[in-house]
């Protein structure tokens, strides 16, 4: 069975500090991978997607970047956090159609 893991579970960071969030999918080779952001009380917005290693497409950047260094790993990062980056970050994977979401990382930027 496939499992999706995100780390860290939660972070409190200062404005202007760097950030790196990780997502790993196990049990599935060459999955499509996605990053989403959800403001508190809001809806989900797709940020990035990746079909293969080393390839990432931006949907909405929000001063963030993403990379896929390994087949099973998707990284979301920024060198300088903004207050507006606070929220809930979810990674998702799909074999073909249906997208399955990870448990998410809560980020608070102060």
């Amino acid at each position, binding site marked *: 069975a496939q499992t999706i893991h995100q780390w860290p579970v939660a972070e409190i960071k200062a404005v202007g500090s760097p950030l790196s969030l990780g997502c790993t999918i196990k049990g599935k080779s060459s999955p*499509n991978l*996605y990053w989403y952001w*959800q403001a508190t009380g*809001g*809806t*989900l*917005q*797709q940020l990035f*997607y990746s079909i293969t290693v080393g390839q990432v*497409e931006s*949907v909405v950047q929000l001063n963030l970047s993403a990379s896929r260094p390994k087949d099973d790993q998707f990284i979301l990062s920024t060198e300088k956090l903004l207050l507006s980056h606070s929220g*809930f970050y*979810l990674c998702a994977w*799909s074999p073909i*159609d*249906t*997208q*399955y*979401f990870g*448990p*998410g990382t*809560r980020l608070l930027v102060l």
Partner: protein
Amino acid sequence: GDQVEQSPSALSLHEGTGSALRCNFTTTMRAVQWFQQNSRGSLINLFYLASGTKENGRLKSTFNSKESYSTLHIRDAQLEDSGTYFCAAEGGNTGKLIFGLGTTLQVQP
């Protein structure tokens, strides 16, 4: 741009009753997914539809791509059904999902 209009924004049901949630799409969508987000934030997959109707227990969903809408029916609501329900539509073949604003459902005893 492509939009997903979800209604109602909030819904309160008594246990044992039912209702329907609806999403309208401003453009032709290839497929729709329905999710329940629980209090921890986890998104639970309910349905994926490219067309037609699917049923799972007390839930039933329909996707009409020609008329650009999808519905989620909940019957015999239980307390554990409380949460926020999202529809998400897929327009192209890149896996871009456009989410509705969600329906917050509260089931009361």
